[in-house]
């Protein structure tokens, strides 16, 4: 392999620096190197690679029914609102306190809550709620007021802010990784970013041929990506493609090599989280990950479908946390769920629930300051066909995460001040 007449691209900055150190100048292997290489070479030092905290966002897409997730079993009104959907057998529930319990399939999450590694934030929403999937997701992902329209996501804004002044890609690794097929709006930013997608059908595309002399042949696209472009736009394209190719190879190597004793559920969420663990454990400098579980839009025949989703969520999150712990990373990672809205408190005539407003949100980490339930059980004493009222603005959660976890000024990202919550210290 190493007798290739043209050296292959380094796949990490460390590898690059090693090669440079060994006397291979930048130009020896590329007429046009990715930004991270040139920037690192100019600075002649690697960017700091200390133990940075990592945020993993898990979107429960479709609008999760809060009342059948965190069940207010002590409230008779719950059973009145849900004559068919209500979970009547209290012995199957996992009590969090004297008011609420996690649904029957959520034993793993309940155990984490007991250990203080899992917190339920009650009644999270925002004023003047919107019931459109599209619009409400946008409000959550851009962290806007209900009547304002922002095009950049809250994490995109965070990355725009925090990385201001720093060389664009002093970091070889993507700043954000998502398991979704398309870039989540949460990540959309004003300045182009090195994001990377690891959706279910991610795989390396390039065929590796062999030279006639028997050596491995570099894929032609790698060669093309190194050609010096004629203008600024071409420059940007070459950089991005080069970054993508390098990351793709690296990610593929990591995913292929990953071994764990923890069993993850086979559904997409568990498999995405397994990939995330492998990437974090491999030391990627990526600080934000975005995963998704779909299917929460339960308008009809909700019960079994919804409980199955919750079981998958619970087991996937628990496997993720256990695997992180096995690597000693459980205190370095914070996981947070969100959903565009909760569902109506009263069940509909198709044994389902329609789009609602506030709902519980979960945070999970070995570094939580306070686990268990934060906030009161929802007030179900509402007029006929009424809806739940939010108690925690979702941006309070974001503000807490930005301030206490990402260590940045939350107002610079959220545009206004929000009271923080006690789950992080």
């Amino acid at each position, binding site marked *: 392999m190493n007798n290739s007449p043209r050296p292959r691209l380094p796949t990490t900055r460390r590898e690059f620096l090693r090669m440079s150190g060994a006397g291979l100048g930048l130009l020896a292997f590329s007429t046009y190197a990715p930004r991270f290489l040139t920037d690192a070479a100019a600075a002649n030092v690697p960017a700091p690679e200390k133990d940075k905290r990592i945020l993993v966002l898990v979107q429960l897409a479709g609008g999760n029914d809060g009342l059948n997730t965190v069940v207010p079993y002590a409230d008779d009104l719950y059973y009145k609102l849900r004559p068919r959907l209500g979970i009547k057998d209290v012995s199957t529930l996992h009590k969090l306190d004297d008011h609420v319990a996690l649904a029957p399939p959520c034993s793993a999450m309940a155990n984490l809550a007991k250990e203080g590694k899992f917190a339920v934030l009650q009644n999270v929403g925002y004023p003047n709620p919107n019931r459109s999937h599209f619009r409400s997701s*946008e409000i959550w992902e851009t962290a806007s007021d209900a009547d304002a329209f922002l095009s950049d996501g809250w994490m995109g804004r965070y990355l725009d802010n925090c990385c201001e002044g720093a060389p664009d890609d002093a970091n070889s690794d993507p700043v954000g990784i998502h398991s979704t*097929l398309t870039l989540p709006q949460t990540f959309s930013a004003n300045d*182009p970013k090195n994001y990377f997608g690891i959706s279910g059908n991610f795989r390396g*595309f390039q*065929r590796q041929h062999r030279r006639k002399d028997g050596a491995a042949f570099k894929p032609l696209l790698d*060669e093309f990506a190194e050609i010096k472009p004629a203008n*600024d736009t071409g420059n940007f*394209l070459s950089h991005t493609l080069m970054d993508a190719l390098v990351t793709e190879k690296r990610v593929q190597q990591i995913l292929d090599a990953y071994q764990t004793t923890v069993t993850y559920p086979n559904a997409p969420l568990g498999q995405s989280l397994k990939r995330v663990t492998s990437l974090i454990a491999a030391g990627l400098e990526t600080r934000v990950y975005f995963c998704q579980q779909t299917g929460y839009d339960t308008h009809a*025949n909700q019960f079994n479908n919804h409980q199955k989703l919750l079981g998958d969520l619970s087991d996937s999150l628990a496997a993720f946390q256990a695997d992180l712990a096995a690597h000693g990373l459980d205190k370095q990672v914070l996981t947070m769920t969100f959903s565009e809205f909760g569902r109506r408190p009263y069940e509909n*005539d198709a044994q389902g629930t329609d789009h609602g407003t506030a709902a519980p949100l979960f945070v999970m980490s070995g570094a939580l300051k306070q686990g268990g339930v934060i906030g009161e059980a929802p007030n179900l004493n509402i007029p006929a066909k009424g809806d739940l009222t939010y108690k925690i603005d979702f941006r309070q959660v974001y503000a807490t995460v930005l301030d206490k976890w990402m260590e940045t000024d939350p107002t610079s990202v959220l545009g206004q001040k929000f009271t923080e919550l006690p789950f992080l210290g």
Partner: protein
Amino acid sequence: MTLDPAKFTPTQAWSPLKPEDWNQDAARHLLHRIGFSATPDRVDQVFKQGLQKTLDDAFGTVRPFTPPESLAAYVQKRSELIAGQRMGAPPPLSNKAAIRIGQGAAIPPQRQLAMDLNQLQQQAFHEFVQAWLTFAAQPENSPQENLTMFLANVLVVAQSKVKDPERIHNHINLLRTSFQQPYPQIIKVVTYSPAMIQYLDLNTSVVGVPNENFAREVMELFTLGEGHYTENDIKEAARALTGIVVVNEQGFFARRRWDNTVKTIFGKSGNFGAADVADLIFQEPAARTHLPKRFLAYFLSPDALPAPYMTELGNQWSHNQFRVDQLARTVFSSQLFYRPEFRGAMIKTPIQYYLGLCQDLSLDVSPFENLVYQNLKSMGQEPFNPPNVRGWLGGKNWINSSTFAARRQQVQQMFNPTNTRNLTADLQGKLLAAQQAGHGEITMDNTRLQKLADKSDEEIASALLNYYLAGEATDAYRADILDYMKNNQGQRIELVRDVVVALFQSPSYHLC
């Protein structure tokens, strides 16, 4: 940006290209920008027929787009469902909905109707998009449809909110058929487009409780730009714009919902209505340059031009009664447009990239409408469904590692022969129907590559580079291709395939 208004005056910039500067490269540049590709035969044709004739062909007449039969079928089904609902008869349940609901569930008719309609809408929308792509892929339609896409990215509506594919089609068709109209007139007509009425909430804007959504966007995004109006102008314009509703899929002025009192907009007072708002806006100087700026950002360069050039272009546009086709003619025949720094310096939109591939490879738009839609979505552009009212920001925003991977995946798909045995009966039927209609060529198989493989390595490199790359074909590309062909193991046809695939995935091919 090397442009200096002192050396290259604005008047000079927008004056017609000198005949001696019209050559094959200029023709290629024009084709890349007004349409989706510059195939050698088209470059030849355009060069020979000249610039004016080319622009006449592109913008001289409106070419009608016929929506697919499935859209009419959807409209029919929609009215049946709604009529059946009014009569109290349970509407028929589609198979998919029945499976989703599960057996034995008692779904009330109202809910059933909503679920069925939703599903029909989605499918009809994807089929509409597929038919539109097929239309736009015809080279003679491409400039018109690219211009329509530009207008649709200014006068934005999105399927995610509008939902009904007929409304989307009607709105797009309105834009398509009005590019020879003055822009103020287009604004007036768009104010009554049902999709727009719904998308920007005009239908909820009533005397006493005006909704400012449309009034704000019409000034901020459609006509003036931020900083050229006051919050009070928006409030007052919103009152003038009350009373518009949708009746039988037509925009309709309901006088009793209208605020019938005096408003003050841009310092002028009167009992204004919707049409007055447009007229008042176009008396503002900023209206002269706002659409031209957006036009140039779409067709010329991601970087804004120095102000003197915009002032001059805006003045010329206003002398041309704000006609969009006149704006296009001024820009595409100008000396400035053909300057070297603007060539090969724009990033193709995903739609441009996909249709450009189809045209460059002489392939048909895939008949698998859901796959086509999904691919474009992965590349970051769901047709007629921009993420918000600002439209797609374009330029560098198109490109990140995910969208790059999606673009590469698109190329791979076009080079992997379809194994028809693996297709569902439904897809096999679609492919067969497309083949019978003469639109069934969807992959580059070896037969198609053989012609290229029969050439020498040098000829292959020259052909590929001269045909397909927008910028100057660099020697580096040639050297890489020759090296790959010469030193690699494997069957010649496979090597040729590798080279072509890599070229269509290469950074340069994303430029136009």
